[in-house]
Each structure stands twice: as structure tokens, then as C-alpha cells.
């Protein structure tokens, strides 16, 4: 495996929209083909902890597949998801107006060039559009930040790890105990089929919407990081230990561990409600992160150890 550090590059021949399209197409390509550095390292550590013959065989299949995907430059999993972009847009970034179109163009380009699977089925018509574009697809979440650049995360979630996702509004007297039970029930009932070891995102907030979007943002946070609130960080750590003690193992076929991490994100909540959301990522959690400056130089920050 070649280790090429991402270079800050700048193309001068194309229009800004074409340049952003190319940059995002590159991000989609590397994200589909290789795992982000933190997920790769986390799986390596987990592999070393398992000792049953079946677990060892499964981890060897996983790493063999990652190797083949990089060598052949193919999507490491066939399910490249309905693309989701999480954009932190600097208020002074000069090309904000054309960013939405560039995201669609990049999605379409990557669909044919990488290639990505045709994964967008237009609702009600129930027809595959064939280019990964449809109503509100790709899905974009926008956040305005200070500054003149962009920070974008793209997430390629397959159907398998999307199925367990759910949120619920608890009554406050159910407490954080209710939150933990909801997550554990979801993981044991549905997570087993979602290609463990899982990345578990938990969101806490007022309603089903805030809890679920926060659980998705929790997935985007790196494995090994902790919530800055010591109580939330403690709950993350204890939930990981608890889930690991269930012994779901790689691909749900039993082992010493179950999850790569439990990440919690939260918002303050209404006194009469306690919303909880859970989103899971599979062993092959594919998220790509990029910083783009106002001169359109960029750096892919998620895949520093991988071919770009």
C-alpha cells in the first residue's frame, strides 16, 4: 500500500464550480475505496483482541477485502449509500451560491467514474434514477460558521447499517436509563445484521428530529474521541464496555467485542421530553472529511494514510 500524503492542490484552468466538483469527486472516490484512518486503526486494534478461529477468519476477510479494494481502486463495499453531505460553510466563502450544484455534479460524476452503485429510488414512482440524484438526494445538512472556507463531511451509509436507525421520545422519568436501554435493545435486535463491529452514534435532545440528527453527527466524530462533557464521556465509555460484554463479535458471529465506539452528541431538552436517537455505522464506516480554502486549495483530512 502506497502512503501518499495528500497534497494541497489548486487547479487554475477550470471554473470555480468545475474545480469544486472535481475536488468533491476526489473526496467521494477515496471515501468509497478506503476506510478513514481512525476506522482502519480501530479495526486493527479489535482484530488483535479476538482469538476464536471464526473471528480471526472474518477479520482476515475484512483486511483482505480492504487490500483488494485499494489495489483495484474499487468501492470496498458495493453499497455506497445515498450520499449525505454535512457542510460547515464559512460565511465569507466566495462560492457558496454554486456549492449545491457542485455537490450534485460531483455525485453524478463519481457515480459513473468510481463507479458508485445506483442507489437513489425516486419515492412514489419507485424507480431507480440511475445517477444517484433524486428529490433531496444527495441529502445536505448546512451549518453556517465564521470564516472563509468550507469543512465538509461526506457519509456513505449502506442500507444494512441504516436499517437499525431509530429515534424515540422518552418521558423524562425514564431517565438516561431509558436512553441506554433503547440503544442496547436496538443494537441487539437490529445491529447484529448491520455488519458489526459497529460505530454507534447516540443523540439526546428534545424531539425525535433533534435526537436523530445528533446521533448522525455523533457517527461523524472520530473513533477514540470523547464528548467534552465528562458525564457524557463517562456514559460513552460505560456503554461501550456494556455492549462489548454482550459479545456480538465481527459480523454478529460472536466474539469478545461488539462495537468500535459509542459516541454521544446532545442538545438541551424540554422539561417534559427526553428524545433519544441511535444511528449505527458498520465495520466499513465510510466517511470522508475535507477542508476547502477560499482559493480552492484543499486537504482531505480523513484519509491521510491512504492513496488519494
Amino acid at each position, binding site marked *: 500500500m502506497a502512503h501518499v500524503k495528500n497534497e494541497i492542490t489548486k487547479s487554475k484552468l477550470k471554473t470555480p464550480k468545475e474545480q469544486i466538483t472535481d475536488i468533491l469527486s476526489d473526496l467521494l472516490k477515496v471515501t468509497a475505496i478506503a476506510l478513514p484512518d481512525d476506522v482502519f486503526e480501530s479495526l486493527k486494534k479489535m482484530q488483535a483482541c479476538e482469538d476464536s478461529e471464526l473471528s480471526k477468519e472474518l477479520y482476515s476477510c475484512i483486511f483482505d477485502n480492504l487490500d483488494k479494494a485499494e489495489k483495484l481502486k474499487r468501492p470496498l463495499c458495493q*453499497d455506497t449509500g445515498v450520499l449525505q453531505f454535512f457542510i460547515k460553510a464559512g460565511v465569507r466563502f466566495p462560492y457558496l451560491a454554486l456549492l449545491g450544484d457542485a455537490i450534485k455534479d460531483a455525485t453524478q460524476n463519481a457515480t459513473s467514474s468510481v463507479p458508485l452503485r445506483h442507489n437513489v429510488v425516486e419515492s412514489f414512482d419507485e424507480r431507480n434514477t440511475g445517477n444517484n440524484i433524486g428529490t433531496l438526494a444527495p441529502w445536505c445538512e448546512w451549518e453556517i460558521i465564521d470564516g472563509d472556507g468550507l469543512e465538509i463531511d461526506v457519509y456513505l451509509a449502506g442500507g444494512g447499517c441504516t436499517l437499525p436507525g431509530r429515534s424515540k421520545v422518552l418521558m423524562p422519568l425514564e431517565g438516561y436509563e431509558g436512553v441506554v436501554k433503547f440503544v442496547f435493545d436496538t443494537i441487539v435486535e437490529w445491529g447484529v445484521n448491520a455488519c458489526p463491529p459497529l460505530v454507534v452514534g447516540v443523540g439526546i435532545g428534545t424531539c425525535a428530529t433533534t435526537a436523530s440528527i445528533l446521533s448522525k453527527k455523533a457517527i461523524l466524530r472520530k473513533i477514540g474521541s470523547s464528548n467534552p462533557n465528562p458525564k457524557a464521556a463517562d456514559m460513552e465509555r460505560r456503554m461501550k464496555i456494556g455492549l462489548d460484554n454482550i459479545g456480538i463479535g465481527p459480523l454478529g458471529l460472536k466474539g469478545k467485542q461488539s462495537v468500535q465506539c459509542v459516541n454521544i452528541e446532545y442538545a438541551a431538552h424540554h422539561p417534559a421530553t427526553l428524545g433519544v436517537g441511535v444511528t449505527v455505522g458498520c465495520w466499513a464506516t465510510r466517511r470522508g472529511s475535507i477542508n476547502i480554502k477560499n482559493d480552492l486549495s484543499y486537504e482531505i483530512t480523513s484519509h491521510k494514510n491512504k492513496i488519494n
Partner: protein
Amino acid sequence: MSDNIENTRNINDKKILTTPIFPEDIASLHIGDIIYLTGMLVTCRDDGHRRVIESDCMPNFNLSGMSILHAGPIIKATPSGFEMISIGPTTSRRMEMYEAEFIKRTGVKLIIGKGGMGAKTATACKQYKALHCVFPGGCAVSAATEVEEIVGVEWEDFGMPEAFWIMKVKEFGPLIVSIDTHGDNLFERNKAEFNIKKEEALKELLPFVHYSHN
């Protein structure tokens, strides 16, 4: 009548099943066994199951004694034909509501996917002598390299993931037997164990997450 020795061979300790598969080829297999498949394998998932069962419509390919893969691949059309780029298994549980009837109507003998299937499928596997196996989820490039050729496609109107891709595969696997012809179900057995351990883990954990204003 099949020849057992011909159809279930052990090469270097690798148990290889070849199509067409006959009940006696798989009778001695048990949950947890690892096997490989050589021969014909076709993709069939949500829409394919729906068309077979709801519309009572069969693809132009006889599935009797054959194997299906719950998968939606990435295929590249080239001037010389179709190229398999990436093909991993999809969540089998989505097909649970139709799989038993699918086994009955088609005579399919081997179903490959990921994650477990439920009691209805296990009963059908016992009654009609079929197997459900899992291919390691997400290992889609490895799987693609075990596809020798895409020999045809049916129901392309479903789009790339749902179409019925007919493939010739060589030593496709590892396939872990998850439901055997005796009706034993590996994932359901594991899940029962996970549920017991879940209660133990919660008992230990819950006293530490009682956050309140009091």
C-alpha cells in the same frame, strides 16, 4: 440423482459445493460450518422476491437446485459485456416475509446473504432441504474477484441493485452456514445468548447513568 462425492468435495480441507445442489449434498452440513460455492449464483433481493411471490412471475432461469445471493452489485457495462466491480451480501432479514414461499416455489437450495433470517425461513429450509449461509458482510471486492463471469441479466427494469444478475462463480466464500437443513438457526441461537448478556450488562451499567437534578 446426484453423486455426493462429485458435488461436495473437500479440496485442501475446503468444502466446495457445486450447482446443481441436491438435498443429499447438504444434509450433513450444520450451522457454523464453512463452505464454498462453485457454479451458478444469481442475485435476488427485495424486488425479485416481490415479483416472484406477488406477481407470480418467474425469471427466465430455472432456480431449482440453484443458489441465490441477497446482493445488489456495482456493475460496469463494457463493450465486451458486463464487468463485476463490487458485490457484497445485503441484509437477508429484509427477505424474511417472502423467503419461505420463494424456496417452496423455486426449489432454490442455497441462499446467501448477511445477518440471520427468521423462524419461517428456518422451517422452510428444514421442509424443503435448503441452506441459508452468510458471506462476510462488506467484503465486496473479494466477492467480485470470485465471480468468473456475468452470464446474463433478467429484470433489468428494476435497476442495477435489484436486477437478477446471473453469475458463474468459483470457490465463492467463505460461506458460514447460518440455517441448516435440520432447521437449526445460528443467528437466532446467538441472539438468545446476546439477550441474556444484554440484561446482565444493563444491570451493571444502569446504576451509573442516573443523572438528575436531585
